[in-house]
């Protein structure tokens, strides 16, 4: 079961105009840098992107926005990015904002074969508009549907040739959820190992969810908010 492809260009070769893509990461942490670079190079457009954030002006999904490859963003928090704001205000870009936990759980629902979930997030707010509200044990919940995504692009720390993945620290975030939710899931990893080298108890994403895997290169792993304590 060898799912290894040569690199990002090969991994994304069937991503075409107009498809829906999930991209893992929170802020710039744990984003699929290599896949994004390949999409920018390929110039594929009219994309719907499901991602918690939309990058910054010169990194992450911001690079795709700069090239106007994105038709619609489905996110929980955006706009750390001037070009994003410009396109949004000019009407070039559509944005659908959904609560972060709803975003995560709708990915989980897809990966777990559940067509919809109930969440209290957004009850009594504009997020609830047009949605079914249902009460359980005296509390109101919104019915939220599982996502459909043609491709999921995720970034892991380690992976094996079968597509088993292990994430590092908070770079895990949405990655394992989106890995489960793509019709085709593409994983880029910092360290690719032969099958049998990962601890079977420590794998976060079983390879059954992953269709292609490659060892990424030149990770920048940019820090968005560098906060430190002074050394004495």
């Amino acid at each position, binding site marked *: 079961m060898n799912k290894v492809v040569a690199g990002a260009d090969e991994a994304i070769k069937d991503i075409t105009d107009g498809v829906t893509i999930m991209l893992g990461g929170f802020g710039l*942490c744990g984003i699929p840098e290599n896949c994004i670079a390949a999409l920018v190079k390929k110039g594929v457009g009219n994309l719907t992107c499901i991602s918690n954030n939309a990058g910054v002006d010169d990194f992450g999904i911001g690079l795709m926005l700069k090239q106007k490859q994105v038709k619609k963003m489905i996110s*929980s928090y955006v706009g750390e990015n001037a070009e994003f704001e410009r396109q949004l205000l000019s009407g070039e870009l559509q944005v659908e904002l959904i609560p972060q*936990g*709803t975003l995560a*759980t709708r990915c989980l629902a897809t990966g777990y074969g559940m067509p919809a979930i109930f969440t209290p997030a957004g009850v009594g707010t504009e997020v609830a508009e047009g949605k079914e509200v249902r009460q359980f044990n005296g509390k109101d919940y919104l019915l939220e549907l599982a996502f459909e995504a043609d491709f999921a692009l995720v970034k892991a720390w380690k992976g094996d040739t079968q597509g088993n993945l292990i994430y590092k620290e908070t770079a895990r975030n949405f990655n394992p959820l989106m890995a489960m939710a793509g019709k085709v899931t593409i994983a880029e990893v910092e360290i690719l190992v032969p099958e049998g080298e990962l601890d079977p108890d420590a794998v976060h994403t079983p390879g059954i969810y992953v269709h292609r895997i490659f060892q990424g290169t030149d990770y920048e792993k940019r820090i968005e908010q560098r906060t430190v304590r002074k050394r004495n």
Partner: protein
Amino acid sequence: MAGLQSIMALTKEQIAKRISRELKEGYYVNLGIGIPTLVANYIPEDMNVVLQSENGLLGMGPFPLEGDEDPDLINAGKQTITTVPGSVFFDSAMSFGMIRAGKVDLTVLGAMEVSDKGDIANWKIPGKMVKGMGGAMDLVASAKNIIVAMMHTNPKGESKLLPACTLPLTGAGCVKKIVSDLAVLDVTPDGFKLLERAPGVSVEEIKAKTAGRLIVEGDIPEIEVKKEVGSRR
């Protein structure tokens, strides 16, 4: 209104310090961005409190020492952080799962407006660029205990404690307590109940600056600010 302007209002640090007195041994706590983040600086040294960061961490430690920043280790405000012994990472579905399941004992967050029914608005100003709700809607809809840290009035001097929010809601009927620069108030079925006032701030000033229903019963003690609470950060 200027005649009522208090010069004794709490600083942001003092608001955070006052909120830290709501912590209890063994609490799991989620702190929002802004003043809430400062609460971490006032956790008593001998108290076991675990900080949750909703991007996927229990056991958030202080900022790293210069040069120790790890790009894979950030909090929900996207700041570089550290772990503590016993920290654990998880994905965002589990993170909001434990929030929805009521496992987080206390959530502290900021607000633009709070109504006397406990509604909160803190994500959107019509006409302005909307950045999104992030995890705020999940947190306010699920937390058992929500304390809002906020200024009592906006820069124009208008009350942010209202009969009804004018801004789009983040959540309805969820806020339990407010610690502002002027006062500590519980949200009750009958409105805001004044519990404590900032040193030197009169009940009259708080009344004047609270547009929502305000309940004042008996003597209102001053918020204790002088005592230095031990910090572990």
